[in-house]
Structure formats: C-alpha cells, structure tokens
C-alpha cells in the first residue's frame, strides 16, 4: 500500500550567518563559510531545503592543553605552536574552520597578555585560510579585554567571537559591532534566557544575522538529552518564524565529550569499557552525531579521528537528499 508522507509547512527558516571574509570582502580568508538557512528539521530533505551543510571547527589552544595523551597524540609536535597546530587541522584533518581558544589568558592560569593573544590570533590567521572562531578563557573581565583587542586587530576578517552571556554581553557586542564581526550568544541550557539574550544583543544594534546561538550542551551520557530538547525548541522556534530564535547553533562537542571519565579512564582501569583509543573517538563522534540531529550547524571538535567520522557522516546525511 502506498504511504503518503506527512509534511509540515513551516513559515520560517534558520537565518544564515556568513563567517570569514576574502580579499574582496575586506579580509584575507581563502574560504568563506555560510551556516544556517535550513527550512525544515534536520536532514528532512523531503520536507524542505537543507541549504548549508553543518561544519566542523577544530579546537586550537594558545597553550599546550591538559587533554589526555590519546587525544594529544594526533597533534604531536604542534601543541606548543598554535599556528602550526591550526595548519595541521586544516591541511591534514580538513577542518572547515579553526576554533582558537585562549585558555592561557586565564588570570588564574598563565595569565597571558593581550598582546600575546593578539599576536597568536594574527599568526593563526596568517597560517590558515579558513575562517576563525575566537573565544577567551571564560573569565568574564579578561574575556572582554581579549575579545575587544582581537576584534580590533583582526578587523575585516569577519570572525565569530565568543561568548556573550546574559550578564556579560555589552563589551563583546560593542566590539563585534565596531569591527564588524559575529558573536556567539551563550545561554545555560535555557530557552528563555537564550531568546532574551538575542533580544538584548539585537537591541544594541547588532543585526540578527551576526549572532550564533550556543545553547550549551552536555556530552553523551551527561545530559545530552537536555541539550537536544533545548536545541529542538530553538529550531522549531526558527521554523515558526520566531526571529529571536532563528540563529544557527554552535556546540562545544570536543570540550563536553572529552570531560567524563568514560573518555579518559585508561583501558587497564576498566577493561570492560574497551580500548581508550576507541572510546575517546566514539564518545566525541556520537555526541556530535546526536547534536547534528538536534540542529547543530557548527561543531567545535578536538579528536581528528572523530572529526573524520563526522565529516563522512555529514556528507552521507546531505547525500541522502
């Protein structure tokens, strides 16, 4: 018996955000990325257009990170050199973007100077042609200074800067407005704060198509279902034409998937869990694949093997059309 597909008719769509700028657009990027634009729920090709494929930004830190040895092994020789690290991510692992996170700027850590951060940002820009996502160290005051300095020094590059939060968004939004960059609006797994923050940012004058939503997530086994449910509501909001929820979403997959014991405990400790080498990759890849189905447009990832799996997975999901 033939089955008629039931199709929803949506009035809205996810807005498109452009990241990076080539020489004609006032920047120096050799590739420019557009995310968003979907007119239906993720990958329902029969129902609406999936305009731009989801992209992967690989994480690069300004200092040698405290990741486990298995994950670090993929980057041997470059972890003390952000520019070389970024190059490896792009040339070898085919990252669509670079996610440069200044964890070394933390006042309670190495407390790197603004000059250092600006220098590193410029080195990474010079080393790769892909667009950059730049975030601070999660110290609100220091982040405001870093982002303002980097935004000015890299004017024209159309960066994605992070992160604006409900109680600390004005400086970063001002920096993005003055120097024409985009921003990440981060809310703590809370749809109401997510929407309110977008309203507040927009009220300052930053256009809606310069905002990307970071809904915050939990990794696989650690609250990913909460993230899934929030993201689904954001996507349904955008499809029902709620302009204050229509932004594409970015997810900190690498950070959350690599936090739990399951992604770090040695094989000898828990032989029943299988090899750590496999577990690390699968934990990150499965977290990413679930969030793709929830509507993620930009995945921030770490492990090259997980990146490879997810790149293939995204290509398959798009090819299914």
């Amino acid at each position, binding site marked *: 018996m033939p089955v008629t597909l039931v199709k929803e008719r949506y009035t809205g769509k996810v807005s498109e955000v452009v990241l990076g700028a080539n020489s004609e657009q006032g920047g120096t990027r050799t590739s420019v990325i557009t995310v968003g634009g979907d007119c239906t729920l993720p990958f329902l090709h029969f129902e609406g257009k999936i305009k731009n494929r989801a992209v992967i930004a690989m994480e690069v830190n300004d200092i040698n990170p405290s990741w486990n040895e298995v994950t670090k092994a993929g980057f041997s020789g470059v972890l003390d050199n952000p520019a070389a690290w970024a190059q490896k991510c792009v040339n070898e692992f085919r990252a669509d973007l670079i996610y440069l996170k200044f964890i070394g700027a933390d006042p309670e850590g190495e407390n790197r100077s603004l000059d250092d951060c600006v220098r590193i940002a410029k080195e990474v820009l010079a080393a790769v042609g892909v667009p950059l996502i730049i975030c601070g160290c999660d110290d609100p005051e220091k982040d405001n200074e870093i982002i303002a300095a980097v935004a000015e020094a890299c004017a024209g590059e159309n960066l994605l800067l992070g992160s604006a939060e409900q109680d600390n968004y004005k400086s970063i939004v001002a920096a993005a407005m003055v120097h024409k960059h985009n921003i990440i609006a981060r809310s703590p797994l809370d749809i*109401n704060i997510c*929407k309110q923050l977008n309203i*507040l940012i927009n009220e300052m004058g930053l256009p809606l198509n310069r905002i990307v939503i970071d809904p915050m997530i939990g990794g696989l086994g650690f609250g990913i279902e909460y993230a899934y449910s929030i993201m689904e*509501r954001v996507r349904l909001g955008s499809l029902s034409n709620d*302009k204050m929820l229509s932004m594409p979403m970015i997810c900190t997959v690498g950070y959350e998937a690599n936090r739990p014991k399951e992604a770090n405990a040695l094989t000898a400790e828990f032989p029943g869990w299988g090899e750590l080498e496999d577990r690390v990759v699968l934990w990150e890849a499965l977290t990413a694949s679930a969030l793709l189905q929830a509507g993620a447009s930009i995945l921030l990832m770490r492990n090259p093997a997980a990146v490879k799996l997810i790149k293939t997975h995204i290509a398959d999901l798009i090819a299914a059309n």
Partner: protein
Amino acid sequence: MIIIGERINGMFKDIGDALRNKDPKPLQFWAAKQQEGGAHYLDLNSGPAIPTKERPEAYKWMVQVIQEVTDLPLALDSTNYNAIEEGLKFCKQPAMINSVPAERPKIERVFTMAMQYNSMVIGLTMDNKGIPKDAENRVAFAMELVAAADEFGLPIEDLFIDPLILPCNVAQEHAPEVLESLRQIKGLANPGPRTVLGLSNVSQKAPERHLINRTYLAMAMACGLDAAIMDATDNALIDVVATCEILLNKSIYADSYLKVFRIY
C-alpha cells in the same frame, strides 16, 4: 495569531471623506499606524461612502494607495464581489476575501474568485436567514463552507471561519456560543480550517469597549482563535495577543516578549 487591522473602513468619518475626495493621506496614515501597532494584514472596507456602481474603481484605488506605503497583505472587505475582484487584480500579495456567507450562489462566486487570484477566504456562519443563536447551527454552516473549500480546491488552511460575535450589550447570549463554535470548528477537518472574529463587534456602543475587547480576545484565543479583525492601534489589546501566545505556549517566553512581538 494574525492581527487584521480594522481601521481603514468608510464607516470612520476620516476614511469616508478620504474615499469621497480621493485623498490617499488618511488611508496611508492608518496603514502605517496599524502596521506599527502590530497588524499583519490590513482590512479595507469602503463602507457606504461610495455608491455601489463606483465601488470596483474605489477598491482598486484603495489597494493601490495602501500598497504605496506598506507591504502588508490586505483583506478586501465588501459584500460587493465585483469591487473585491477589481481590488484583487492589483494586490501584490495573496489577499483575504472578506467575506462569504454559507449561501450557494455566493459560495460559487467567491471560491471561484479565490482560486483564480490565489486568495484566502473568510466564511461567515450565516445564510440569508441571518445569524444562528447557538453554536450547533454556526458549526453546521461552517461545515458547508469546509465542504465548499474541498469542492473548489481551496486549501483548508486558506479558509477562515468567522462564527460572528454580536454586541454583548444587546445579544449577550451569543458570546459563549461563539466560543463553543471556535472550539468545534477546528475539528471539522484534519487539518482544520482557521478561525477569525470581527472582534470590535462584541463591544459596540458599550462604554467599556476596550476592556470588553481585550477580555473577549483572551477568551477566544484560549478557544483556538487564529485571527481577528481588530483595533491594531490599541496597545493593551496587542499586549493581550502577545501574552496569550506565551500562555498558550505558542511563542517562547523571554522577559522582553512584549517588545519583540511588535517588531517581528
């Protein structure tokens, strides 16, 4: 909910005069003001200001001068279908035909026209004998209109049923019947037709007009109302719409929800 601004109506003195004098200014003023207030559609009704013979030309003129100042879609409101048709020819966006009762010759005229001009239709739950007293007969008329949509090929979501609210100061018993009709009409098809009310009718000539409009709109929205022809310049009434959408979980809450409701 779809807000259809009611103000461009020849029953208002400034609009009536403007129609007689072919002065576009008052029409354009109210178009902009209603859009600013939160209207999604603008209702255009010449009223008795223009003689029947001249109405087609008047509707064409109204559509043209309004579209000079706004991109909002229009609801062409008349019992003169030749006038509506002349207006439809010049609408840049799919319009609403306001309205058709459940009477066969009129159904044939209006639904055929709706298909030809890709328009939506507001169907009234009445016939030439008048408006029913109870919900049951309103819903029966609604069913005739739903069947007509099916017959003529009009997508069911392009049919808006108006169960016809009457002034509460003279016909109080209709108010709960209309609410019950709103609930039942949605179940006539799957998906169901949409519903609309000429809201201001409920408060005609009552001193507490604004309060009655606001209260009845909230009650009707709770019964599933999809659209209202209403005063889009009454800020508190627009706030009621925004708040009902939050409380019905149709829009996601944010502290500034009132502010963004009008902008988008």
